[in-house]
């Protein structure tokens, strides 16, 4: 499946589940409100009866901000200090919701029970995979930051200009971003592996994610980058309009609030869209893989069966040969007895098994024997049927002859 197709299919599928978007959006809004509402209370109570803060309606004011933070910063810090816990809580919630999203996308149907059921079912395996990937991302961040920072720090005095440090810094940031993106993709495809295979092995999923991303590198990265680019564009558009919007009236505040929420809504939608599109290409490849696997498996099964059959036939032929040999031996014994006491039934073996010049004789290999036996086996029935038919015909013919007679 090409990217455009994955896109389109992902979009169409995402668009089918508005209830899912709303769940995701409200999860975001409600979590943010946990801190935003106390902030509003702090602002309202501390702005109090002063008209000093009215200046904020005209836009950012450094003096007002400085004064507010100087006198009321502690109250604000107590609340904003909760951001780290909120981030942790939202991380866990996102793991849960991602389970629901993937379940919905995979089943291609939404129901509240299957959405939350999927979230609950996949929570721990997705959490494990997310933590694994996050640890790797953090590891790379530390390694790159420490090595680049250390290098710049120790060599800075030798640089001709700060541009050298800029370029190193930018290169390191780009490299890290690249690594970050790759592992984010790995995390997504790893989850698809877990979902589609109903597996709980996060390491296998991680490895499968890596294999998949690198096997379809251009496709997966392009898909991810384009969908990353879109929110950046939207953010730019938002900031472009927002910077000139003073929010000085109640209507103005309401309008900006609606713009903001539309933006958040779009981010939530885009995240789902990314997952849906990724799942489309993964699913497509997964199905193809399954079809091939089924074909290969059927061939393998057939072969195995054939070999087993052959083994059975060989063993049967061996047994029958042994029986035949035994019979021959018995017959020989009997013949020996008869030779000692010759009778009218005596058979001249030499004569009987003497080489017939008219017939080309060939020594068969064991396989040829088996092959022939299988063929004979198969043909035996036909011969029997033919014989039966022949007998019937002969009987009928006899009856007719009798009738004639």
């Amino acid at each position, binding site marked *: 499946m090409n990217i455009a197709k994955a896109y389109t299919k992902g979009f169409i599928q995402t668009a089918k589940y508005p209830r899912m978007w709303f769940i995701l959006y409200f999860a*975001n809004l409600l*979590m943010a*409100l946990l*801190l*935003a509402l106390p*902030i509003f209370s702090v*602002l309202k109570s501390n*702005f*109090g*009866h*002063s*008209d*000093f*803060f*009215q200046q*904020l*309606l005209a*836009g*950012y*004011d*450094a*003096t007002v901000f*400085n*004064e507010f933070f*100087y*006198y009321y910063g502690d109250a604000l810090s107590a609340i904003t200090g909760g*951001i780290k816990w*909120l*981030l942790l809580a*939202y*991380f866990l919630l*996102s*793991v849960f919701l*991602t389970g629901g999203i993937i379940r919905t996308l995979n089943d291609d149907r939404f129901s509240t029970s299957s959405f939350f059921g999927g979230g609950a079912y996949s929570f721990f395996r997705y959490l494990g995979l*997310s933590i694994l*990937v996050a640890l790797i*991302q953090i590891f790379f961040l530390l390694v790159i930051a420490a090595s680049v920072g250390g290098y710049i720090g120790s060599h800075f*005095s*030798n*640089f*001709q*200009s*700060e541009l050298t440090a*800029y370029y190193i810094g930018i290169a390191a940031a780009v490299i890290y971003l690249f690594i*970050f993106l790759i592992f*984010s993709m790995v*995390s997504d495809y790893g989850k698809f592996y877990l979902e589609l295979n109903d597996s709980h092995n996060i390491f296998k999923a991680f490895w499968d994610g890596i294999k998949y991303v690198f096997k379809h590198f251009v496709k997966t990265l392009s898909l991810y980058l384009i969908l990353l680019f879109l929110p950046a564009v939207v953010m730019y558009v938002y*900031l472009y309009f927002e*910077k000139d919007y003073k*929010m000085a*009236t*109640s209507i103005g*505040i309401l309008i*900006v*609030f609606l713009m*903001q929420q539309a*933006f*958040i809504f779009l*981010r939530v939608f885009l*995240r789902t869209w990314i997952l849906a599109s990724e799942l489309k290409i993964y699913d497509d490849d997964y199905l193809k893989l399954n079809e091939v696997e089924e074909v290969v498996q059927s061939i393998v099964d057939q072969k195995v069966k054939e070999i087993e059959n052959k083994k059975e036939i060989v063993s049967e032929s061996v047994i029958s040969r042994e029986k035949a040999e035994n019979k021959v031996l018995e017959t020989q014994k009997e013949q020996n007895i008869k030779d000692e006491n010759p009778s009218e039934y005596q058979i001249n073996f030499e004569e009987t098994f003497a080489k017939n010049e008219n017939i080309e004789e060939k020594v068969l290999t064991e396989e040829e024997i088996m092959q022939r036996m299988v063929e004979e086996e198969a043909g035996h029935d036909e011969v029997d049927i033919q014989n039966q038919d022949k007998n019937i015909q002969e009987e009928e013919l006899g009856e007719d002859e009798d009738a004639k007679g």
Partner: protein
Amino acid sequence: MTKYLFIVLLFVTVNLKAQNKALSLRNANYDMDVRLNPETKIITGKMKLKWINISPDTLSELQFHLYLNAFKNSESTFMKESGGRFRGDRAGNDDLSWGYVNIQSMKIQDGENLTNKIQFISPDDGNKNDQTAIRVPLKDSIFPGDTINILINFESKLPKIFARTGFAGNYFLVGQWFPKIAVYEPAGMRARKTGGWNCHQFHAHSEFYADFGVYHVKITLPKDYIVGATGKQLSETVEGDLKTVKYRAKDVIDFAWTASPRFKVVMDKWNDVQIKLLIQPEHEDLADRHIESAKAALEYFDKHLGPYPFSTLTIVDPPVTGGGSGGMEYPTFITAGSFAKIPAGMRMIEMVTIHEFGHQYFMGMLATNEFEEAWMDEGMNSYFETRIMDETYGEKTSFIDIAGFRVGDLEMQRNGYVYNVNRKLAESYRYAWHYQQGAYSTMSYNKPATFLNTLHRLVGDEINDEIWKTYYKTWQFAHPSTPDFLKIVNEVVTERKGLDFAADINDFLVQAIYGSDICDYKVARVSSRWINDPQGILDGLQIKQKADSAKIYESRVVIKREGEMIMPVEILIRFNNGKEITKYWDGKSRSTEFKFRSAARVVSAKIDPDNKNLMDVNLANNSYVVRPDDKPAWKYAVKFLFWLQNIIQSVVWFV
């Protein structure tokens, strides 16, 4: 007798000034011939100091600053006070990083050899390991008006740059680099009770102090080096791989220079002043920002303080590795500071250029003692910096104006003081090295810039300009002190606004300069209640409420003084019928109450409605509105909500 001699001397020197068109007394003059070895970072030189005793005192010793010895070892006073860190830079600890100045020989021309008489002194802290100040006893006294020529051979090893001076690769900023005679202050000068040398050690938080003179300096160095220096370049000659440049600077208190083969030279002009910008190649696109801001400063000072009397101005843009030498002032020679690709809305280059140029006045011409009264150079200069920056780049946008984030220069200076936890830690009038916990910059830059802007707003533009112009005219090319400035303020304000107003202004400045109290006035309460007509039994008569009687309200406004600083207070009171009343209070008692009886209720009260008093540390409590508007709270709560939603949504990338 002494007084008589002093008057004669002053007469002679003033005449001397007139004859030579000298702007200063030129009592400390240097002729130097020096050579820079870029490999060893050593400057070897010889100099002749021609020093005139312009005091009425007979002197038996000389004192010199050897500033560069601050970088000689870890035990110098500078290093111990700074901990080897200065403005974010750290001193190096390899052999090449140390710096020093050695006097190899010192003698009086045609006279006494002083080399063996040199004694290190540490008048400020008694640190025996500090070698930044010396005294040299003389066999023969120097009488008032006497001239003494001293020949000195010296070697200056430049340190790796971390505090103003030294080298960074092949960039050299050579400041505080030669043996420099201290200032002799006779009794009465700068309110001194007795005469004496003013020769402080080099401290982490202090700058310099010197007499005026004429400098002739010959510098020899590799020919590929581009040079800039204090004063005017007279010549440049090349001989083999070396070149020699000659500079002359008149009526200056110091001489600094720079050299680097990487400099790009940008020349420009403002009136008759030649502007020379030595800029790093990677910053070449920022040249205009340096030049234009320097021109803005030249224009502003010329208009509001006094003319720039020199014919040159050299601006140096250090490389980032020599950033410690940035943001420094020397006569006609300043260092700015920039980073490649710095956005236009981040006006650090402009601010630093304007600030350092301002030091041409507040230090270069109004040559205050930076050791003892740092507020007079840094504070006054910061005040002018706020004026120039805000006028040139906008009141609330002059320092930063990027993506809706705006900070004005005055805002930055004021906020640095009023919202500083150390705002009560010290006075502005204090020896620079006596400040603790970072209070030096707050008290010598931020607070003076704030109270001088307050003074400006209190007296108005016209009187304010008159104060500064008078101060400049009176004290240019001399050594003013705090009382000298206060005297001029009092004289001008008294003449223009009367004695009472001048007394208030004087009280304000004295509290601001010599005190550490903060100013905070507050509208504590605004209330109104309906007053009924008299009713009940009054004087035996039953009085009933009249049906048609008009409603009368009694409104009260309570003002409190929360801080210790006392200032007159102006209060604007608004009524619900649109009427406004302005009330005045001397601000001395802890609180006062204003009562009003009228048909209208008070809806708001505001202290200092024209926002003149920038010293008030809490502007939020300066007003009280009976029915406040919640919109600001809604606006920022909504903004906060949005950014929080974005932040938490970003966590999804880790899932």
